[in-house]
């Protein structure tokens, strides 16, 4: 599972460069899949997607476990659902050009409890069921990040 020295990206020019991964999100019940970009977010206690995204995958949103959560700006409602997530391989082809290889999956996350948020949000890959199992290294000066399983070391 070598996510090593992946290039940081940003969505809009006002953001700082950050660890984004391009992923395929799958509803295990319907097998419907969608690609999207997801922010690796140490400030997020769980993985999170918007309700609009989950609806496209065929989730019956309000049948999930209900809760309320605090975001950077307010409190929102969420419903928890199980996702499967493939993370695609990604590398730099030039200083400003990133290539995502959709034929090469670097890591698959099974049975991820994802909070489906009742708001517009970039997809977040947070601590529960993801970062809690790995070591995240961020090299901001070089705009590179790594996510590795270093528990044996």
């Amino acid at each position, binding site marked *: 599972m070598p996510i090593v020295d992946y290039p940081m*990206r940003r*969505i*809009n020019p006002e*953001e700082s460069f950050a660890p984004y991964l391009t992923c395929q999100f799958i509803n295990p019940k319907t097998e419907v899949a969608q690609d999207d970009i997801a922010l690796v977010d140490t400030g*997020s206690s769980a993985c999170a997607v*918007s309700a609009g995204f989950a609806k496209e995958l065929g989730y019956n949103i309000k049948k999930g476990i209900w809760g309320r959560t605090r975001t950077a700006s307010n409190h929102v409602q969420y419903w928890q659902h199980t996702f499967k997530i493939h993370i695609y391989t990604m590398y730099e082809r030039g200083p400003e050009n990133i290539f995502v290889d959709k034929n090469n999956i670097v890591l698959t996350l099974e049975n991820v409890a994802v909070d489906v948020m009742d708001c517009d949000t970039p997809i977040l890959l947070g601590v529960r069921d993801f970062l809690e199992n790995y070591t995240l290294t961020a090299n901001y000066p070089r705009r590179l990040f790594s996510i590795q399983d270093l528990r044996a070391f």
Partner: protein
Amino acid sequence: MDVPNNRTLVPDPQYQGKYVALISCNDNTVVGCGKNREQARKKASQQGYDEPFVLYVPVGHGAHCVHAHR
């Protein structure tokens, strides 16, 4: 060959707070936008792109999220 600049996915600030449809995850040409994913996807489809890469563009520094359970 012209190599696209896609380290910043959506450089144009007019799309902040909207959903955009890009040609693909490796070509960040915007081919649709809207207030939700469906609208962005529909506009891309009208331009002949039936499988666009759709994403939400945060406002300003909006992607710096905190999501904390109570």
